[in-house]
């Protein structure tokens, strides 16, 4: 489902974000992307979402070669991804419901259908009763769960979560990880980046990066 073949990413001559990284992730896997800040985790996730393109090597996501995908094809690739950011990046001028509806709205879904599915997604993360609240009226953990609802509302094949538990207390972080595990249990491929070793599952696969190099988890 996700394939990295000798991938390197240089932002400038002396800024090598990823160095010869290779791994495969199968459909339905739950993978933690671990490593300290600056290890290249965000760059790697950005490549999967086609925000960045590799300087060398090959990244294949859902059969699409990210290095060769045309600009017009990128939105359609992203519609099969659920992206969760470290800073939730909810739009503060509209309700949680409107935020969660956004991935459906951009695909041209009918409003009624989008609202129904957004409410269902909010129900899954336990936020249905806060649907009409504005993002800033929610706690950090609730905002992150709202971001998860937004990521899964489109029924994506892959969820990418970039430090989803950063800035959350232990209990809130646990709820966020539980929610992601629940989606993985129904067949969604999940890739969760973290620098917090405590949230790593003992049984789950870990891909570890240090200074842009893969040091653990290549398969």
């Amino acid at each position, binding site marked *: 489902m996700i394939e990295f073949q000798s991938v390197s990413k240089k932002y400038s001559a002396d800024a090598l974000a990823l160095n010869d990284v290779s791994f495969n992730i199968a459909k339905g896997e739950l993978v933690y992307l671990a490593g300290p800040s600056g290890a290249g985790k965000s760059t790697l996730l950005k490549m999967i*979402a086609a925000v960045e393109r590799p300087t060398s090597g090959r990244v294949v996501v859902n059969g699409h070669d990210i290095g060769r995908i045309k*600009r017009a094809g990128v939105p359609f690739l*992203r*519609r099969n*991804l659920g992206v969760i950011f470290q800073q939730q990046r909810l*739009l503060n001028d509209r309700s949680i419901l409107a935020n969660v509806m956004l991935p459906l709205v*951009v*695909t041209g879904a009918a409003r009624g259908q989008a609202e129904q599915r957004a409410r269902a997604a909010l129900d899954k993360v336990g936020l249905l009763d806060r649907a009409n609240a504005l993002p800033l009226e929610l706690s950090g953990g609730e905002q992150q769960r709202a971001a998860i609802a937004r990521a899964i509302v489109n029924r994506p094949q892959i969820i990418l979560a970039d430090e989803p538990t950063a800035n959350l207390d232990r209990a809130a972080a646990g709820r966020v990880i539980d929610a992601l595990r629940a989606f993985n249990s129904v067949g969604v491929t999940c890739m969760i980046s973290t620098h917090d070793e405590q949230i790593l599952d003992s049984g789950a696969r870990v891909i570890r990066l240090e200074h842009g190099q893969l040091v653990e988890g290549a398969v």
Partner: protein
Amino acid sequence: MNIWFRQHRFALGAAFAQVRKAPGSFLFNVLVVAVALALPFAGVTLLDNVRPMSEQLSVDPEISLFMKTDAPREQAQALAPQLRQILASSRAKVSFVPREQALDNLKTRSGLGDVIETLGDNPLPDSYVMKLEGFTSRADAARVDGIAEQMRALPGVDSVQVDSAWVKRLAALLGVLRLVLLLLAITLGVVVIAVVFNTIRLQVLTQRDEIAVSKLLGATDNFIHRPFYYTGALLGLCAGAVALGAVSLALRPLNAAIAEFARLYASEFQLSALPPLGLAGLLAISAGLGLVGAMLSVQRHLARLN
């Protein structure tokens, strides 16, 4: 088709939402653009009113031949074959105007019927009016003068007038006015585009986060661009409507002043607003200019965000 329609409806809704967020700023921009549009719109209205008058006036040379007042009708009518012979190499329409008809025309057209009635005898001579076609160049003008000279030598002829120069001058003046108006419209059109360009630039900057998030959620470029296009077109449309309203309002005091002036020439000339099709055309042009400004701005500033 449904998806296409829904996305356009969403974009229009987003454009209106943007206006609702900052109505004062939108209104200010509408006024700035309206001021820029009002001048060419006023010019178009003026030309539209003057054009029918100028079209009624022929720019083809017209030769009027007046017989001596004491020349008998038979002598005047006998000139017709000679005139046709002189005009043999030209396309011309020759009309004989008997003195009675000339008097009637004078009474009805001048508005001085009562005064003319007091004259008693008809002071006007029999005459011929000859309209020449296809005489447009300077060389043609010399030919016309030559023709007039030959006619002056005919028996019983009192005078011959070549009557086209002032009509040509008026046509040339209108041509210059049209050109000035076109240049003015182009200049102010650029101003409109620049104002909309800047307005949309600010909107793109304030919505940077929303754009970035939407792109990561799978929004296409068209989806992101459309609300800005609608905002630009809406701005142009509203400004066009305000400008046309201002021109219509300005016609009232202008017409009051024109009425005074026209009365001196026994005319009832009044400026009127453009017909509905013309108004719709100007509104479409305004919206189009707004759209062009928005498109240029979006292409430039979103490319930077990308």
